[in-house]
């Protein structure tokens, strides 16, 4: 296990280096002198000169990258020009809100996606299967910001059951907190539920036709036991890894969902930064999400090995 971990971590290092290079290179896309653009609309010559000095703009690209990456490695993702605060502090401040939203969304996705996948596999080619597939296709094709607007129309404007926007901290009032997150979490979880349903369905179909399931049935075990205990356990293994790949969808979706419901999270941070031309924040957020994504996939890989005794680590 230890060698597997070391080897697996070794492969992500070059990826991380490339990610950082790529994100740093984004700056090169800015038309003209980055300092002038970064200085904002005022273009105060003092600010421009200060930025030139601070960002080492007179140095060649590799030198500038070196300065930037050594800052990043020391936890310095730069400073927000608009808010005059370190980017990392901003990210860490907004992160809990997005994490809460994402956790709710994952729970909703699991609660809908996995049972739907099981049912459509067990009741293959029936109305159930057909219905689940239609819902999955709907989940995959609905733009989540539109779904958000439609839910606001129904539950906030027409029925008046839920708040249309805003966020209340769970420490302030947990009921209001849940009420403010139900719709956004459903919007965010819905697309992932569709993906999980499809993965669960195909994994279950494969497992249900295997010999050991036939043996379990031949022994006279009740069908529910066979499906839930024997089949599901093995079917969930690929779902874990494939599900982990959806974390990117979750992070991307959070940007739009937070925008629709005006939730002050991580996604709102990047959108506001884009409009304030606060490029250090944009770079910081992308770097942070990419690193988180790589780390979470690593965890999923390790979990895959841990839950699947058939994979001996030596084989990898």
């Amino acid at each position, binding site marked *: 296990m230890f060698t597997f971990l070391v080897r697996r971590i070794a492969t992500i290092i*070059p990826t991380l280096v490339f990610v950082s290079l*790529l994100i740093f290179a984004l700056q090169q896309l800015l038309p003209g002198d980055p300092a002038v653009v970064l200085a904002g609309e005022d273009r105060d010559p003092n600010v421009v000169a200060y930025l030139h000095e601070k960002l080492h703009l007179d140095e060649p690209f590799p030198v500038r990258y070196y300065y930037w990456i050594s800052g990043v490695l020391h936890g310095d993702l730069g400073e927000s020009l608009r808010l005059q605060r370190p980017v990392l502090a901003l990210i860490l401040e907004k992160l809990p809100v997005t994490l809460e939203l994402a956790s709710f969304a994952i729970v909703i996705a699991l609660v809908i996606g996995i049972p739907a996948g099981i049912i459509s596999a067990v009741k293959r080619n029936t109305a159930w299967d057909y219905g689940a597939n239609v819902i999955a296709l709907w989940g*995959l094709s609905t733009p989540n910001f539109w779904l958000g607007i*439609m839910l606001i129309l129904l539950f906030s*404007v027409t029925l008046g059951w839920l708040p249309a926007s805003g966020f209340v901290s769970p420490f302030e009032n947990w009921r209001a907190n849940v009420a403010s997150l139900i719709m956004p979490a459903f919007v965010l979880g819905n697309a992932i539920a569709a993906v999980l349903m499809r993965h669960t369905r195909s994994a279950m179909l494969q497992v249900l036709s295997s010999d050991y399931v036939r043996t379990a049935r031949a022994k006279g075990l009740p069908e529910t036991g066979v499906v839930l205990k024997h089949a599901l356990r093995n079917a969930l293994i690929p779902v874990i890894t494939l599900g982990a790949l959806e974390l990117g*969808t979750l*992070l991307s979706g959070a940007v739009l969902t937070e925008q629709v419901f005006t939730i002050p999270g991580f996604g709102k941070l990047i959108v506001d930064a884009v409009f304030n031309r606060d*490029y250090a924040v944009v770079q910081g957020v992308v770097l942070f*999400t990419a690193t988180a*994504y790589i780390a979470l996939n690593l965890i999923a890989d390790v979990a895959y090995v841990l839950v699947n005794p058939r994979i001996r680590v030596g084989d990898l």
Partner: protein
Amino acid sequence: MATIADTLPQVAPTAKPRTHPLRRLLRRRFAAFGLAVIVLFVALALFAPLVAPYDPLATSWGAIRKPPDAEHWFGTDEIGRDVASRVIFGARASLLAGVVSVLISLSIGIPIGLLAGYAGGKVDMLISRLTDAVLACPFLILAIALAAFLGPSLTNAMIAIGISATPVFVRLTRGQTLAIKAEDFILAARAIGNPSWRIALRHVLPNVVPALIVQATLAIAAAVIAEASLSFLGLGQQPPAPSWGSMLNTAKNYIDNAPWMAIWPGLSIFLLVLSFNLVGDGLRDALDPRSV
């Protein structure tokens, strides 16, 4: 003089499918429905000036936020523009963005993927790590960042989406190339002295195409959503030019008194994306020789 080369087939001797793939595609009801919807939207986009009842940019202070009626089927927006006409013209931005961004991804992704798969070794290592790096940045977040640095416009949104979607095509082309490279007919082609580039283009590429077509169709669906998302955030098509995403962005502010402003553009995105997904799924089944 007849050489052994004359007796060898030029491309992979694949079994002839019993029916044409297009016919097999149309036989699937869902895919046929999807194709019909796409054709309808393409027609609307092409003939928008003839089909649309009003000028999509014409404002009318006498008809602000009017609910749907016989005059304005989908109602009017916050400055009295006809929503139906804007939805019809908006199809142009969405279809253009969907197709152009995928063409950008294909034109970068296929050559790089072929190179990685065919050359192997260090080239493959380098390309694969780079692909991993781009894939590590969530698709939409990367597209937002690229669009932010390039500046907000429909063209830049298409470039941003195209670049963000490229790694999928690199991976697919590379994987398929690796599999095909191991086939006997490639060995035969090499044995008769074909140069590498010729083998890659004439023998490998044609066999990668079916998988690429399926992926490209599904990628158009993703690109249409991505363009709508960027426009919704203000990073795509700039107002007053109509686009479904930016229409929804405005509609969000009037949801309590003019919900029709939000319903139709969203429904159009949904229908178009659903159709590309249906056709993509149908193509996957139709082009898969095992499913005949």
